[in-house]
């Protein structure tokens, strides 16, 4: 039993170590180090020895000196047995092994005898592995996007693995793509249009959505159940089936290529979600507060304005942010309705840029960074609101 647990422990833990070190190696390769071999088997074997040594030493010396000593030996061995690598890379290996041995802390000969220890080991290391894996898989494309925008097409064609940034160059040189897309491709205008459409959509959606949500939440009227169900069903309906009729009607009314046209489409498609999210919150406001307002002779308008809105500001904020993000990220309608560069939104402009095969990719990525940054900032800054909004109001993309 003990022997089996030790074997599982060794294999799983060194598998985890191999994964982190491989990611470290990949990232370093992108910094211009010429590695050509992942050396998985060597690292795995070294990991086995490291874990074994860790368990065998046990409590004979203090945890701190144990981790430090083992990591140091591991890094030296790594340096000896692998291809030559710069010192900062080995220092990274040292830090990773420190982190790793620290994670091994709770295992010793004693704990490896416990019930279900092999399952616990697997769960523990899968958790660790999962965190590293998910973080890497998600952040890597964002990293590529950001760094490519600072490189040049030619440099990347010569060596697609060289993602080093030369900070000794002057800043104008480094941010060249950004200057170019603003000066040559008019991105300043597109930012303005995107902001105007998104903010406009938020305002109109709230203007129409708050009264409607209040009616659904509080008032009794014929067809209320029908309406609540329809809201749910409508936002299941996809934009793609609306596109052809809207395109034909908008063409005949001259609403294509107009920001106003885009605004009403965005508002109409976000209204159901907004109403659904808001009415959920309005229902949670105690009715007695409103009754006091009615006693004071307030009109419905007054009640909404003076009681409901101030009480539900957090919900309104989350709806507003959410609608803003939908409108800002929207692509399908802007692709269909806008074909004059005068009225492009950011997303449409980037797609238009990519249509020309001659456009160097760093411009495309600089544009992508510009369109991504605001939403990521809003998201990070207001995460709490947004997450509660997302889960409360079910979902809409």
């Amino acid at each position, binding site marked *: 039993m003990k022997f089996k647990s030790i074997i599982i422990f060794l294999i799983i833990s060194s598998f985890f170590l191999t994964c982190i070190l491989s990611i470290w190696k990949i990232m370093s390769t992108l910094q211009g180090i010429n590695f050509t071999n992942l050396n998985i088997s060597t690292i795995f074997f070294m990991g086995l020895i490291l874990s074994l040594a860790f368990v065998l030493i046990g409590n004979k010396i203090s945890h701190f000196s144990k981790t430090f000593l083992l990591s140091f030996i591991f890094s030296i061995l790594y340096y000896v047995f692998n291809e030559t690598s710069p010192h900062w890379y080995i220092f990274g290996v040292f830090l990773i092994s420190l982190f790793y041995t620290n994670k091994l802390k709770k295992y010793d000969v004693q704990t490896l005898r416990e019930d279900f220890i092999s399952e616990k080991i697997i769960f523990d290391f899968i958790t660790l592995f999962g965190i590293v894996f998910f973080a890497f898989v998600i952040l890597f494309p964002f990293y590529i996007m950001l760094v490519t925008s600072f490189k040049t097409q030619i440099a990347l064609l010569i060596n697609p693995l060289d993602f080093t940034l030369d900070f000794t160059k002057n800043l104008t040189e480094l941010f060249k793509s950004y200057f170019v897309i603003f000066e040559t491709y008019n991105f300043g205008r597109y930012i303005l249009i995107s902001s105007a459409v998104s903010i406009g959509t938020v305002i109109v959606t709230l203007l129409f959505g708050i009264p409607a949500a209040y009616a659904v939440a509080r008032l009794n*009227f014929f067809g209320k159940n029908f309406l609540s169900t329809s809201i749910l069903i409508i936002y299941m309906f996809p934009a793609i089936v609306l596109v052809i009729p809207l395109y034909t009607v908008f063409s005949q009314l001259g609403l294509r290529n107009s920001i106003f046209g885009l605004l009403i489409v965005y508002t109409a498609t976000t209204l159901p979600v907004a109403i659904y999210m808001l009415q959920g919150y309005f229902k949670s406001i105690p009715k007695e507060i409103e009754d006091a307002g009615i006693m004071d002779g307030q009109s419905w308008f007054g009640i909404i304005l003076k009681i409901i809105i101030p009480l539900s500001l957090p919900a309104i904020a989350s709806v507003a942010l959410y609608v803003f993000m939908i409108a800002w990220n929207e692509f399908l309608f802007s692709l269909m309705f806008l074909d004059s560069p005068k009225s492009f939104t950011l997303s449409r402009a980037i797609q238009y840029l990519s249509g020309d095969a001659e456009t160097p990719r760093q411009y495309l990525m600089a544009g992508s960074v510009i369109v991504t940054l605001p939403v990521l900032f809003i998201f990070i800054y207001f995460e709490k609101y947004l997450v509660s909004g997302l889960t409360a109001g079910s979902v809409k993309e």
Partner: protein
Amino acid sequence: MSDSLSKIEKRTAYTLLLPAVLLVFAIVLFPIFANIWISLKDIQLKDIRIPEPRAKKIVKSIPGDASALKIIYKLRNSSLIQEIRNVEFKDKLPKNVLPANLDSRCTFKSKKIICDFGDWDPKYKENLEILIKNINGEKIDKNKIKSQKPILDGKANNPLLTTNFTFKNFKKVFFENNFMDLLLTTFYFTFFGTVGAIIFGVLAAQLVNQNFRGRTYMRGILLFPYVGPVVALAYTWTLLLDPNSGTLNALLINFKILDTPINLLGQKYITMSIFGFDLKLRLALTTVIFFEIWRYFPLAFLFILARLQAIPQSLYEAAEVDGASPIQKFVNITLPQITAIISILFMIRFIWNFNKFEDIFLLTGGASGTRTLPINVYQQGFAVSDIGMGSAVSIVIVMLLLTFMILYFRLIGKKANEV
């Protein structure tokens, strides 16, 4: 008294609802029904512009005679394919100015030139010249004449509003459009995209539900792909996967995992030999599905995490006391608690993946075996310019969707209310 109150309440409710309902009706519901109408017509993209009669007015002075001017109206039919019937023309002249020569189709009455041009064929063009003179021999103000715009009116068929219907489009959708392949691709994409997103969502939620340092940051990071703009993310992936200079291929070749670059988004099939069997895998479709999973697992993650955090900790403590293993805990406590939310997520994501357009469009444009129904709507309507066909495909989508929804409410509707 209470009766009148409830009447007021009703009226208020309808007033408050009206703007929102009207807007949603016009932009969302109306088009869904308009699809039926359009899909039954043989109509091309170029037909939807209504033809108009147009006139460009050019004013020329006559040398040596300030009291006379020559007006040239460049008349044309704006449409290249449709005729305009009963074209009427009106233009005003200032006081004391008379036309000297009038076309036989025109009359001059109370300072107005009125012409009846009859029917104009497609591409019709004509230059109408009129000489005008001031009867008192005074100078005519050229700019005043110029600023007066002629009014034209004519009847043209709006091909959208005619009542000749045909089932041609539906016949084409089902029999001349590789319909089975289209349907299968859509289902592969939808099904695997959905299942993958949910599996990764469960894994990620299980992770973040543990205690570790920085888990709030982890939750934020996990949602990045979902909140990022699709255009930026899709192009980053295209760049990353590019066969010639993409980072992924360069890395794989650098570490000798691959010999030649692999065109993940441009190759329809890849043959893999496993145990002597040759398996043909839809490569580009698989890549697109992975992108889809990458982008939408955060949503599943968020919902499942919310559910996981609501499970009382005491359940796990009790299981601990009873000596349950981690796997037993997961199977017997966690899984039953999240099945309801998983089934709801499955339906929601299934419906939305089924309609996904942007992601595929931006990654492959529907090439290399990634043509799904929504992509086909775009291709038919805008690339082939056959909007009747595009609408017919839309109708097929709506029909399939309604079927899913009915199934959804039958099977899971009850559960959805419980959660």
